[in-house]
């Protein structure tokens, strides 16, 4: 190796070590794609439930009628709530699997300081958001739950971008924007969820996969 190549290699090494030690870089694009597909499948099932109860408009009327009358326990037993929970956990599990595979491939331990730091910084906005939205449910403000989830998730991603692939910031901005727009279209949360949690995740995941993981 000549001197110039040696110098370039040294700089590459420095950059690599700085990134690997401070950011969780194993996050796989395929995790995003998997989570997005889960969201779309979940949205399809939820849509069936809504259609079975007489279509979106009568469903919205039914929801409007029950506002303030339905207890939290009743809401938690709701079929839509169950679909949402299954969707969330399967998305979490699948995205973990793809990221795990990538970390094995890159020979980076999955459970290190960078992973802990990332999880903690995602958990802060998500946890605060979850408590706040549960409180909203207790007061019967169901219409603001869907936009609230998108907004808090967007904030979590923007915060996370300092501790993992920085491009995730743009996914966060998109979730924030669509969540805020959803505030003016209360009752259409399912469609906004399908776009935000479904389409945006898939697009982000494919772009990241294309950029970093494609052979």
């Amino acid at each position, binding site marked *: 190796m000549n001197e110039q190549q040696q110098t370039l290699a*040294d700089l590459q*090494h420095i*950059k690599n*070590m*700085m990134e*690997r*030690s401070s950011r969780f870089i194993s996050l796989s694009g395929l995790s995003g794609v998997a989570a997005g597909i889960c969201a779309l499948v979940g949205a399809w099932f939820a849509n069936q439930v809504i259609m079975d109860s007489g279509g979106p408009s009568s469903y919205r009327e039914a929801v409007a009628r029950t506002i303030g009358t339905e207890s939290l326990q009743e809401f938690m037993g709701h079929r839509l709530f169950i679909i949402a929970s299954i969707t969330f956990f399967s998305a979490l599990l699948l995205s973990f699997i793809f990221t795990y595979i990538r970390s094995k491939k890159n020979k980076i331990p999955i459970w*290190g*300081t960078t992973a802990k730091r990332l999880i903690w910084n995602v958990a802060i906005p998500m946890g605060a958001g979850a408590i706040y939205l549960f409180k909203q449910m207790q007061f019967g403000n169901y219409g603001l739950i869907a936009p609230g989830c998108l907004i808090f998730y967007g904030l979590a991603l923007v915060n996370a971008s300092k501790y993992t692939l920085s491009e995730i910031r743009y996914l966060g901005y998109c979730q924030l924007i669509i969540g805020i727009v959803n505030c003016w279209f209360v009752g259409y949360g399912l469609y906004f969820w399908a776009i935000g949690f479904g389409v945006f995740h898939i697009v982000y995941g494919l772009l990241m996969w294309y950029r970093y993981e494609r052979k």
Partner: protein
Amino acid sequence: MNPIEHLNKIFDSRIRLGIMSALMVNEEINFNDLKDLLQITDGNLASHLKTLEENEYVKIFKGFVGKKTNTTYSVTKAGEKAFKTHLTALEKMIGGIK
């Protein structure tokens, strides 16, 4: 001015260069995380850390996590300065090619 004169002999080693790079962007890193990062043996890492410590580029904190010892490392002011000088010299060498 010849930028090569500003290159630091201590950073000739890839491993020491890696340790310093990681410490520059983290407040502190423990021994095991450094080992995972560089993928080298305990003894190898310890000897490189010793060299850096003798030159007062890194400082050591010995603590405990539960009953296990937890040794963490962080960069000193002198280490930070030396690393930055080395980086500038590397940049100049690249710039000199143009």
